[in-house]
C-alpha cells in the first residue's frame, strides 16, 4: 500500500506525493516536504493521529500538509 502526502486545495484534495513507504528514500520525502513548507507555509500532520509531524517516517501512510491561518 502506497503512502500519500496530500493537501487541501481549491481544486479538491490534491496528492502532492505518493510513494512506497517500505522502499522510498525518506530523506528525499522529507526534503520535498520541507521545500513545500518553504513555499506555502504548510506543515505535515499525520492523518492517523491528527498530530503535527516534525518528520515523516515510514509509519505514516497518509500525511496532510496543513496551510497557515491568519487572524482577521
Amino acid at each position, binding site marked *: 500500500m502506497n503512502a500519500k502526502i496530500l493537501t*487541501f*486545495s*481549491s*481544486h*479538491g*484534495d490534491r496528492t502532492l506525493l505518493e510513494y512506497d513507504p517500505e522502499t522510498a528514500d525518506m530523506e528525499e520525502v522529507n526534503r520535498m516536504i520541507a521545500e513545500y*513548507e*518553504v*513555499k*506555502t*507555509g*504548510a*506543515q505535515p*500532520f499525520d*492523518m492517523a*493521529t*491528527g*498530530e*503535527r509531524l516534525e518528520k515523516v517516517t515510514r509509519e505514516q501512510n497518509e500525511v*496532510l500538509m*496543513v*496551510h*497557515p*491561518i*491568519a*487572524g*482577521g
Partner: protein
Amino acid sequence: MAHFLQRGICMEPAILSVIAFFVLIVWRFVFAGSRRGPLARAIAPQQQRHNHLLEGGLHISDPGSVAVIADNQLENNAGGLHRLDRKDPAKRYLQRIAALTGATQMSNSYVLDVGKMRFRVRHRHVSRLRDVTDPGCALEETCFYPAYKGMPKAEEIATALLQLMSNPALFDRWAAQSGAFKADGQAFRPAQ
C-alpha cells in the same frame, strides 16, 4: 384485314417494348440483389464487431451517436465528479478530522476541548473559553482565514481544528491579527 395486319404490325413493337421493359425491371432487381449480397455480407461482420464492442453496456448502432453521447456523458460526469471532488471529500475530511481531534458538531460549528480550553469553530470564526470549569470565564472571539485562498469551507474548519488541537495558543495569534501563522506558531510571510 389489311387494316388488322397493319394494326398487328403496329402492336408487335409495343408488346416487345412492354416485355423488354418488364425484363429490364426483373433483371435490375435480380442483378442489384446479387450485388447487394456481398456488400451486405461485408457490412455484417463490421456491425457484429461493433455490437461486440458495445456489449459492455451501450447498445447504440450508430457509432457517431455513441461518440457524441459518450463525450457528453464524460463531460457531464467530469463536471459532476469535479463538484463531488470539491465538496464531498472536503466534508469527509472534516468528519475524519473532527473524529481525530475529538471535536463534536453542534449545528454549523464544531466544539473542540483542549485541556481546560473549549473552542467553538465555525466557518472563519472561532470562540474560546479559557477554562471550561470556570463558570465566570469570559468568551473570547476572533475571526480566521486560511492563507491559501479558495479552500472549501469544510476544509477551512478542518484546518483550524487540527491547528488548535496541536497548538491552542494560535488563537491568541489570530486574535492579534498580525498576519498568517504556521501550525507550529511561526509567522509565515508568503514569498513574492
